[in-house]
């Protein structure tokens, strides 16, 4: 065979072997567990040896920590961060000090329920997640999951694996670029077009395995630290609530679906549930948790309102009021309802279908919150929702002002509500009361300007 004739065959073979290689890049250190098999006890990945690439990654993430703090993303509240630290220290045994890991536990100012771990031992839990969970055991479940990622060196393994796969993709692209013409050329072109997708699919599949390992080992850590392990399942159920209708099912997803996680966690726990906490004990734990977390929850409701997550704000504020209906908590519920305006408080089953959520996500990308308000107010349902929610908000503001130690901001809320209802005189009165009661407030200038505009516009 002439060398020119052999070229398509060689190119084809290279493509096939590269695709095959891409499927076999899962590191040997990650053992895939059958559903009912018990994973080894929680410990650091002892076989792990740091290479140049890993140390470079470590350097990058160390810089990230400082940046989160400087940019005001970390909650500057020592009490909350110490609370997280205490739970983390209970979960991790004293002798467990993996190389290049310094445990740090911090709350991140973000209303979206989430948590993540950096490979240097920094664990971040969002205020959104801390406000959503019911008790300390559920928070411990989240921390245990994230700490497993650190101890088992998942970030480093994933980084190494991704680098191999990227290289494979690039080589496939290079080979594809020099494919011959004709039918063989067409086959090779298709193979090189599809291959990167296959490689990407294996990348995300690998991630899913790590997530599963973190879930199962997290349960072990909880049992060891005497936290209620079944709360790991409950925290997944809470995350499955999807109050905002934003959990989209994607083809490529780095976490297993929440339903899938609940299933395998329940299965795993079922075989080892030697500790099941009584409801009474969980209720006590919930009360203590809410007492500690009240300031974080209020802060998170403000963040949720700022970012247009009004349904979450109503849900969280209602939980706070149910726990303790003081003036401040009632005020936050009023704020949430006022901002919810023409939107329904809960999404219907129809709105929670995947296609409806995709449509809603597209609309969110296009419209501003004010435009969404105006659009909804143009419909009878939106007008009715707005009327009901503003009425509810007014009642709650008035209630907040009638309770012991009333918060002055309730006057500001009433002012904004009346301004929206075109009751300019009432709005000015409420704004003035607010400014008298809180002369050093940060929004003094803003409210003063609103008063001036209202006075100019009213007859």
């Amino acid at each position, binding site marked *: 065979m002439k060398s020119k004739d052999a070229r398509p065959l060689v190119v084809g073979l290279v493509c096939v072997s590269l695709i095959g290689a891409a499927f076999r890049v899962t590191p040997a250190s990650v053992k895939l567990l059958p559903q009912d098999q018990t994973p080894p006890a929680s410990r650091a990945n002892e076989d792990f040896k740091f290479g140049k690439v890993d140390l*470079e*990654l470590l*350097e*990058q993430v160390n*810089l*990230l920590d400082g*940046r989160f703090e400087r*940019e*005001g*993303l970390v909650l*500057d509240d020592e009490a909350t961060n110490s609370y997280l630290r205490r739970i983390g220290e209970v979960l991790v045994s004293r002798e467990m000090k993996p190389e290049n890991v310094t445990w740090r536990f911090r709350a991140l*100012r973000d209303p979206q329920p989430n948590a993540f771990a950096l490979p240097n031992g920094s664990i971040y839990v969002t205020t959104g997640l801390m406000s959503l969970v019911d008790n300390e055991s559920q928070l411990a479940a989240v921390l245990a999951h994230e700490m497993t990622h650190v101890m088992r060196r998942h970030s480093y393994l994933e980084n190494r694996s*991704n*680098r*191999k*796969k*990227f*290289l494979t993709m*690039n080589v496939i*692209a*290079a080979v594809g*670029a020099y494919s011959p013409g004709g039918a063989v050329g067409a086959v090779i072109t298709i193979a090189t077009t599809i291959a990167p997708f296959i490689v990407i699919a294996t990348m995300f599949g690998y991630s899913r395995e790590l997530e599963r390992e973190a879930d199962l080992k997290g349960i072990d850590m909880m049992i060891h630290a005497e936290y209620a392990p079944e709360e790991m399942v409950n925290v997944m159920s809470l995350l499955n609530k999807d109050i905002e209708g934003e959990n989209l099912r994607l083809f490529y997803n780095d976490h297993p679906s929440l339903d899938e996680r609940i299933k395998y966690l329940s299965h795993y726990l079922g075989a080892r549930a030697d500790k099941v906490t009584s409801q009474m004990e969980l209720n006590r734990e919930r009360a203590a948790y809410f007492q500690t977390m009240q300031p974080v929850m209020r802060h998170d409701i403000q*963040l949720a309102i*700022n*970012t*247009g997550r009004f349904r979450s704000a109503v849900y969280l504020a209602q939980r706070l009021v149910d726990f303790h209906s003081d003036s401040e908590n009632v005020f936050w519920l009023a704020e949430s309802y006022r901002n919810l305006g023409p939107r329904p408080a809960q999404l219907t089953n129809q709105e929670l279908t995947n296609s409806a959520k995709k449509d809603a996500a597209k609309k969110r*990308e*296009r*419209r*501003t919150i*004010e435009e969404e308000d105006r659009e909804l107010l143009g419909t009878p349902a939106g007008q009715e929702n707005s009327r009901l929610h503003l009425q509810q908000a007014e009642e709650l503001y008035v209630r907040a002002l009638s309770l012991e130690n009333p918060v002055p901001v309730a006057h500001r809320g009433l002012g904004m509500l009346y301004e929206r209802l075109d009751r300019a005189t009432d709005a000015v009165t409420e704004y003035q009361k607010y400014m008298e009661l809180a002369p050093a407030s*940060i*929004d003094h*200038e*803003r409210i003063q*300007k*609103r008063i001036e505009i209202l006075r100019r516009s009213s007859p």
Partner: protein
Amino acid sequence: MTSVFGNITKPGLRPINPAILLLLIVAICASTARAQYLHPKVTKRETIIRNVIILPARIEVVRDSMKGPEGMAAESETLSARVEEAVSSVLADKHGIKRLPTQAPSSTDGGSQEKYNTADFQTRFDQLLPKIIKRRGDVKKGRFSMGDEVLNLNLDKSADAIIFIRGHGQKLTSGKQAFSVLVSGEKAFLKMQIGIVDAHSGEVLLYTDPILVGDPTTAVARLRSALEKGFKKLPPAS
């Protein structure tokens, strides 16, 4: 021998490799700027921008290698500061606009609150940015506003506008550069998105998205040139 442009070769002349041609084009048009969109208040001179506050820029660059993108956290921070400085210098030199100092948060609880306010306002801009990018032309209709919460930032009273800077870019390793010449045609670049927001009403007064082609970590002169083009339509302060 044929090239992608057809049978253009003559005996004794070698064809121009398309990749080399691309590199030549890139070198000639080293920096480009896309259109700028101004609020009618600015074009009609109802709002004159004299003093601005530049909020910390958020620019992310990665080193793209054959083994995928690698983070450049330290370089990103340095570049963010450099872009802030370059914006300030271009506005001062070409438009007579003065940069006012951003108030540093104090160490008290009030300091935390100020830090949070700034962070939340940056997040607010990040939420608005995709909407602006989707319909850039709507800035000319005065569609976009960040609301009167802007007054909660308690900035210097003489500030007329606040500048938000975002950007992302990549630098190529030598291996990736060679690969790019042979196969992908990828380039080193820096894409910026800059918004100027009224410090009193929160309205978006200007949006521009200059692009710099070349290594973003070293191309200082090209950065300035891209920014000059990006702010070309902004009327002078006087």
